[in-house]
Every structure is written in structure tokens, then in C-alpha cells.
């Protein structure tokens, strides 16, 4: 197909529809309003259903119901709205339902602001809801990747019967870039577990996350963790850029990774060799990639670049496990680090080496 110019938010919506998503439940919030607006316009045309829920809580619970009924379904929101969905997300994981949840992050805490931020990283990857659980968290850094990851996200969700989150930010949601919708036949998997009616002779389907016997609950959680092990095995995605003979490796995801590439170019012009590890799956985190580069003699240090006060840096430290120093530089609240300031930071680190 030809390239089209699209806003990130609209691209997400279009990608979802092309991936066979026919149900969307959401509640307005800046900066993701183009997603529901697009869905409201397009879903009725493809026999789907868009419904503006009365709240984010209702939206996520409608998703729970629709997913349990076997639909390919999604919701989207931004930071405060995602906080409200935490109980629901925990339920969806507990009941092993597939769905896609989009968070177009804005500055926090509280009402905060509406400019782009990455300060919901912890919430997304460590679990903002209660209990032991994980979600695959996908962090696109271009509109094209957003489109591709939406498709993959639905497939991963179905494969493991677990929610998948797309973690974007206000900038990715609002910006436009050329994007290509690759022709791809969507084959929705059979969902024999879905509650579509209990025909005589079939076992009943029950969507549930209650296990009143603690041994039963532990067994269930262990089952979930088996899936998480498989995800760690199969679903890690990461881009390494310029890492060969890099002296310092930046780690950055999403919008920050784009800026990191500018920095790398600037640094190169000044004769400084900088690499980039760009986690595409924030969970499962590309631990081995970090370990590998941490073991290379030419790498002297890592620098986590974030639009937050230092969240992903913990996962990097956990991966590198003391092998090399891991630094942090970030801005927050909607402020976006400039390539210049980052380069300054890198120079300081080099002096310290």
C-alpha cells in the first residue's frame, strides 16, 4: 500500500481496525482524543462498535466483558485515566483475557499537565495494579512502528491471553509521519474459552479471577508466570543502533530514542562514539542485550535517557548488574530533553570515566 501521512493517534486506530479490532471502549482525555474520534467514525462502517463509556473504569470493564465474549477489543487513555484502570487491568490479567490498552502518556503526578512524558514507565512495567502480574509493554518510536506494534500487540495478547499495553506519549500521539499499512491477512484465532453461549454438551465457559483457596490462587499465578517466562523467551524486542565500538551507550525508548539518534549524530560530528539500545518491549525488558554490551570492553558506561525522573534506569541497572556504571539524564512534566543538553551530559560522563 502507498504511504499516507497520519497522526500517531489516528494511525493507532486505523492499525487496530486493520488488525481486526471491532470494539473500542474509552473515555476522552488529552492527548489521545483522536483515537476514540477515529474509532467513532470508522468502526460503525466495518460493523464494529464504538462506545464512549461513562468513565475509564467502565471502559476497562467493558473491555473485560467484550474480551471474555471473544472479541478483539481495545481501549486507550492517558495517565490519570490509566491509573483508574489499574483494578480492571489486574482483573483482565487474572482472568487471562487478551486486549490492547494504549497509554498516551502525559506529565504527572495528579492532574499534572498534558504535554508528552514517560513518567508512567513504572506503572506500566512493574504493575500499577495489585498482585503479581505482567503485561507486554510495547514502546514504538515512530508512527510506522506504532502501526506495526498495534498489530503485533493484538496477536501477542491473543497468543498468551494477556493484556498488552502500547506505551506512547503526547508527542507520538500528536505528530504526523508517513506510514504504510502493510497488506496482512488478519486471522483471528479461535477462542473456545469465550463466553458465547453454552451449547448442550460443551463445558461451560467461565471468565474469572477468584481463587478462594490460596493454593488454587498460587497455582494460577504460577501458570501466569509460566506464560511470562515464555514471553521473556519469545517476545523481547530491541533495536541496537551504532553500538559497535560505542564508548557510551544511551538507552532510550519511544520519543526519547528519536532524540537520542540526533544526539548520536551530533556526537559523531564531534568524534564521540555513542550507541543506542532502544528497548521496544519495555516488558519483557531486553536484559540480555544490555548484558551483552555491558560485557564489551569498548563500552565504558550507559546513560538512561528519559522523559521522567529515572524509571527505566532501574531496569538497566538490574540488567547490567554492576558491570558498568549506569547514568541517568531526564526531564519531566512535559519538558523534552534537547540534544544539546544531552550531549553536555555525555561529555561530563566521559570526563568521569
Amino acid at each position, binding site marked *: 500500500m502507498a504511504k499516507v501521512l497520519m497522526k500517531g493517534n489516528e494511525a493507532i486506530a486505523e492499525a487496530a481496525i486493520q488488525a481486526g479490532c471491532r470494539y473500542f471502549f474509552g473515555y476522552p482525555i488529552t492527548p489521545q482524543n483522536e483515537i476514540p474520534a477515529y474509532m467513532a467514525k470508522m468502526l460503525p462502517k466495518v460493523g464494529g462498535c464504538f462506545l464512549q463509556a461513562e468513565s475509564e473504569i*467502565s471502559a476497562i*470493564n467493558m473491555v473485560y*466483558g467484550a474480551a*471474555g465474549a471473544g472479541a478483539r477489543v481495545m481501549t486507550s487513555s492517558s495517565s490519570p485515566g490509566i491509573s483508574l484502570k489499574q483494578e480492571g487491568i489486574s482483573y483482565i490479567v487474572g482472568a487471562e483475557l487478551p486486549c490492547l490498552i494504549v497509554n498516551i502518556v502525559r506529565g504527572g503526578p495528579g492532574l499534572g499537565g498534558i504535554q508528552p512524558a514517560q513518567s508512567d514507565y513504572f506503572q506500566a512495567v512493574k504493575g500499577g495494579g495489585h498482585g503479581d502480574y505482567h503485561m507486554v509493554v510495547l514502546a514504538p518510536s515512530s508512527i510506522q512502528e506504532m502501526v506495526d506494534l498495534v498489530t503485533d500487540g493484538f496477536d501477542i495478547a491473543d497468543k498468551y491471553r494477556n493484556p498488552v499495553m502500547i506505551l506512547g506519549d503526547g508527542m507520538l500521539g500528536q505528530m504526523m509521519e508517513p506510514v504504510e499499512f502493510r497488506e496482512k491477512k488478519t486471522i483471528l484465532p479461535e477462542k473456545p474459552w469465550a463466553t458465547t453461549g453454552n451449547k448442550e454438551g460443551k463445558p461451560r465457559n*467461565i471468565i474469572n479471577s477468584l481463587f478462594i483457596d490460596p493454593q488454587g490462587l498460587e497455582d494460577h499465578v504460577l501458570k501466569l508466570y509460566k506464560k511470562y517466562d515464555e514471553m521473556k523467551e519469545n517476545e523481547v524486542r530491541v533495536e541496537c543502533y551504532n553500538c559497535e565500538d560505542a564508548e557510551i551507550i544511551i538507552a532510550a525508548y519511544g520519543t526519547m530514542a528519536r532524540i537520542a539518534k540526533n544526539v548520536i549524530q551530533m556526537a559523531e560530528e564531534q568524534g564521540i562514539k555513542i550507541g543506542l539500545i532502544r528497548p521496544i518491549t519495555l516488558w519483557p525488558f531486553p536484559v540480555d542485550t544490555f548484558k551483552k554490551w555491558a560485557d564489551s570492553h569498548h563500552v565504558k558506561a550507559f546513560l538512561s535517557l528519559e522523559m521522567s525522573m529515572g524509571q527505566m534506569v532501574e531496569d538497566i541497572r538490574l540488567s547490567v548488574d554492576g558491570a558498568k556504571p549506569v547514568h541517568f539524564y531526564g526531564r519531566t512534566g512535559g519538558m523534552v530533553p534537547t540534544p544539546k543538553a544531552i550531549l553536555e551530559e555525555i561529555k561530563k560522563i566521559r570526563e568521569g570515566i
Partner: protein
Amino acid sequence: MAKVFEKPKALTDKPFHYCPGCTHGIVHCLVAEAIDELGIREKTVGVAPVGCAVFAYDYFNCDMHEAAHGRAPAVATGIKRVLPDNVVFTYQGDGDLASIGAAEIVHAANRGERLTTIFINNAIYGMTGGQMAPTSLVGQVTTTSPYGRSADTEGHPIRVSEMLATLEGVAYIERVSVHDIKNINRAKKAIKKAFEIQLEGKGFALVEVLSTCPTNWGMTPIEALRWLETNMIPYYPLGVKKEVE
């Protein structure tokens, strides 16, 4: 001899976990009979609440969802939008529906979702051990109203059916009771009608069932039925609150 009363097909064989004399069991039976009589078991999907009826998914012999506390109407909406030709019902307690889930029920009703809601008003939080519900009567002693519910600080008990009946999307609302045979039979009719309304696509249907919680009321089951009759019915008048043609 013919069977004049037997366990409905729409109930599983699992014995109820409810306390002795708890009327949740009676209502389960009525719901199951309605499903049987309408022959819709195979296309029915039920939504269980968080409350004493949390294990309803073990009892109703059809596909079931267990919803988060208060969110059954939203869960049911999700199901029904995906499966408009199926029959979807929710079963909710008064803490679940009238307190934490107030927004969800108001909006499902207002949207006129084609759902059948069974609303168990037992004037208390049964499952968590007897806290005040929004429907607890003035003066009623509960663990969180140890000096009796005060209208001044906690408000009067909420009449959910009357409130929801003001909404356009509602096709049918009736309040019934199960404290004696006559009323159980009326309740049965109402519940069946609430399913029929859905089958006819008319809109949102809800049956509020006045129920007992002998355990947390601190009464024998028989005393509890009398207390319901004497104290609840005067405040919660029985009857149809809304019905559209």
C-alpha cells in the same frame, strides 16, 4: 406422578454456599426457572458480582463472567455489544450495584442496554461481614453504623428502582420481595418479564428483590423474613416502577 417442582436445568449441581435461610438461594432458583421456561440457557451469559453471590458463576448453568465489584453493568455491556443476539444478565447486591457501582448502573440503564439486572437488596454488605449498605434502613445497626444508621450524617436509604425509573433507557423496573410464597411467585413473574423485555429488545430491565441476610442481621431465617416484611417493605414499596409498552 409428575414432577411439580424440581431443580431447574439452569442451575448446576453445586450446592449453594449461602448461609442457612439466605434468600439469595431462592432468587437463584427463580432466575434459573425463568431461563428454563424461556428456553434460553444456551444463549445466556450471566455476570456475577462481588458480594455473597460472587460464586454465582458456579451455580448458573450457563456461560458466566465474574465482574469486579460494582462493574457488572459495564462488563455486561461489553458482552452484549459483542453478542447482541445472546441474552445477558447481571446479578448484583446492594453494595455492588447501589454503592460502588452507582455510575455503572445509572449509565447502563440510561443507555438502555438490553440487559436483565437482578438486584438483591438485603440492606447490608453480606460478604464482608455486615457493613452499612446505601440501602440499610435508618437506625439499622451494622458494623459501620454501630449506633444505627443516621439519616443526618449518612443519608436516607436509597431507593434505586425509583431513581433509575426516571431514566429514558429503562424499559422495565419492578421491586419484588421473597418473604412468602405469594411474593416469591410475583418475583418469579417479574424476573421472567425482565428477560422477555431483553428478548424483545425493548431496553434495560431490572428487578429489585428485597432479600434477607439472617447472618448479618443477627436473626434466624424466619425472623429475618418477618423483619423484611415489617421494616423493609414499608420503606421500599413493592410494584412496577416503570414499564414501557
